[in-house]
């Protein structure tokens, strides 16, 4: 296995964090970030789907990289400044 570059290592550190992904048709998925690959195909576990006012549990989902518009991660470090 090749050594991780800085970017990959940082991404790896976000595994198991809560992630929020916006997809091309406007839906938002919030779930636990568990896996991604070169094509940015990303897998979220225990995901919830949001479309406008509707919300539902969708479980384990794979979001293809080409439909992934924006990805956020829960920033656990930023919380400190309010402490």
């Amino acid at each position, binding site marked *: *296995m*090749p050594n991780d*570059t800085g*970017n*990959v290592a*940082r*991404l*790896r550190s*976000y*595994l*198991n964090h809560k992630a*929020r992904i916006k*997809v*091309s*048709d406007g*839906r*938002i*998925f*919030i779930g636990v970030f*568990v*896996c*991604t*690959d*070169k*094509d*940015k195909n*990303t*897998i979220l*576990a225990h995901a919830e*789907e*949001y*479309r406008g*006012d*509707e*919300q*539902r*549990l*969708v*479980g*384990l*989902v*794979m*979001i*293809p*990289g080409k*439909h*992934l*518009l*924006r*990805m*956020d*991660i*829960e*920033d*656990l470090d*930023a*919380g400190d400044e*309010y402490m």
Partner: protein
Amino acid sequence: MAAPQKEQPESSQTNQIREAISKLAIDVPEKEIYNPYRENDYLVPQWKDITTLLDNASNDLDVGQLVHLQSFTLFDAMSAIEIMDPKMDTGMILEGDKKKPFDPLKSLSGEQVLWVIDRLLSCEMAWLSGHSLSQTIFTCMYFHDVFSLVQEKIEPSQRIDQPPELVSSVLKAYVLATTKCCHLIWREMVSGNVYEEEDFTTNLFGLSLGEHYPDTEVLNAIDYAIHWLSEFKKRMASEGGENLAVFEGLLNRLYARKHYLLAHMYFSQPKCEWYHKADSELQELTKLLTSKDAGSILNTQNLGKEVDGAFDENINRILTSQTPPRPIILPTQAEALESFVHLSSRLTSLCSIVDYQSVASLLNFCKYFASSRPYPDAFSRSKLNTSIYHSYRFLGSCPLDEVVAESMIDLLQPPSWWFSKHRPQSIEEESYRETKTAINAFLERAGLPFLDIFRIYCHNRARQRRIMCKVLGEWEILLNEAFTLDEKLNEICFDESKYYFYHWTNHRRLNMIETILLLGFELELYGSHEYTMIYWFVDYLLTYRHNVYSHIQANIAISDVYSEPYTSSNARQSSPTSQKRQRICEFQSLQLINSIKYDLNISVWRTLIAFEKINLIKKPSLAFDDEETRYQHRFKAFANLWNFELPPYERFRNDVNVASEKPMDQLHAAQMSLNRAKDNLRRIIPESALQTKTELCADSYKKDVQAMMRTCISNQVAITRIMKNTSAKINISFEYHPYWPTFNVIEL
């Protein structure tokens, strides 16, 4: 009719949510929606945009390299649902989603109502056959809006033959009744008698099947609809209306639904007390379903006119978010009606079990019930299971030890005082008490394993074989206990050794081994090159059983009719009809049936050997096949049985080698066996159902005997043709009997 929502206590929030889901109004107003962009919430961590990081990192990754949790494997990844894939992603907006929602409050013509009703029946039958509710019943838009179908709300129509009552009374009543039937079925199915997902899906997806809606209201609705429709039909007839057949058809459907619903209500009562009532309802139902009069259900099937959008498959996308839908093809109207007729007649036969004459005939009923084709649906099987054993009683009323005692008396007629409450004068007080204690302990012990045999037949065909293999071990232990008990009883009661309990237990065990072996043919578990091996083993079993029977006959005097009446505390027996019950011993017919099977089986074996030898049947050349290993594997379940040793493989090989030497002699011997089997079949056909213990399953039994007869005759013809001319082709098929094949000669 009052809307049921109003009857519900408004306070309970769970009820509200449930109702909201029922109405598919997923956006429950009371529930606060969580905002995914909760930027102003200081209590939770802030979001950090990592899109650019993701882009950069993915550029650095190699093709095929994954960033993943240690615990997350590629295998897990495969079960993820792919977003934006129209086949998997149920939340995606598709082209078809843009059409406007279906309006259930439009008035419909008679033909349209008829179509909705028939389509709903197709859905119902598909559900019963194992599909999910979300792909069947729940696709009906009228199911979801049934309570809003009020006459005043229905949009009036200009046409005189299209009054709003067709929807607000007829369709509403029918949909309500269907929902009620589904609920009664669902209540049975969640009792755990069948395997979820394997036999049936009970998932309600949080929707309600109208359980809060009283049964009487549904019946009232149906009665009112029937009354209104009859009046309307009369009016239409006097005005010279054209499509009277449609209204007659609708009326028949309402009647049929009412009978079906009533039958289910009677079935759901405890202790099987209302089975007679259910029986008469089901007979009425069958009459309606099979009637061929003008205006009957069968004749009006093609009159329906499709209502666009009344059934929406997309409901499934809303309800099942976590699994992609399974492909489903609804049965056509004709197929649905056919399965309905089958269901109705199966349930009718089930009603008869409350009047069983003997335990043996009830067991035979279960056996033939399980083997009937088309195979019984999950609901009937579950219902039979519940009927046989509930409230810790056999048929809800009889203790299990009495059932075992009755079964023993049916088979072997042991001394009657063993099971009666009165001590005969010839027996001393002390030895009487000792005997009774030992016997009662065994009867209690054998109760549940014996009950299992009945209940095994209530599983699907493949499970039956599997479970039998499993319980065989338990019967081994029971057999040992029975033997110990017999030894003890021999000391107390008899001068010579008699083994009643051993023989009874052994008889059950051998029957099970026979079923396990022969079911393999029905379930197509064996390859055709294995047939000789299996039939050889069946032959070994049947010969063994024949010897056991001969031994029983020599040592235990069994008369045709049991002399002394059996007195027990059984509640069923105290009824006036059962006083006259005659105990006819099943032993004679068991012997006869065994010899028929023996002859039929050995003839098939000999024929197979001979045909293989003269190259009429070709064995496939298998690369990694070792016959001895296969032999051990096939009969693994019988490897360590007590008093029924698995013969060594060499013995099988030797028998085959000897038999193969003179194929023509084998064919001659097969002919003789078939002649003997035919003679015995002719002897058993006139025997009464009481003698063969088949009064509950007379038709299936008759078919079984006829199938054996047909197999005998057609195999004799085939053998004769081959003996005249060996240059032919043989086709083996289980055309008549599922256990013994017929050989068809195709001349070249």
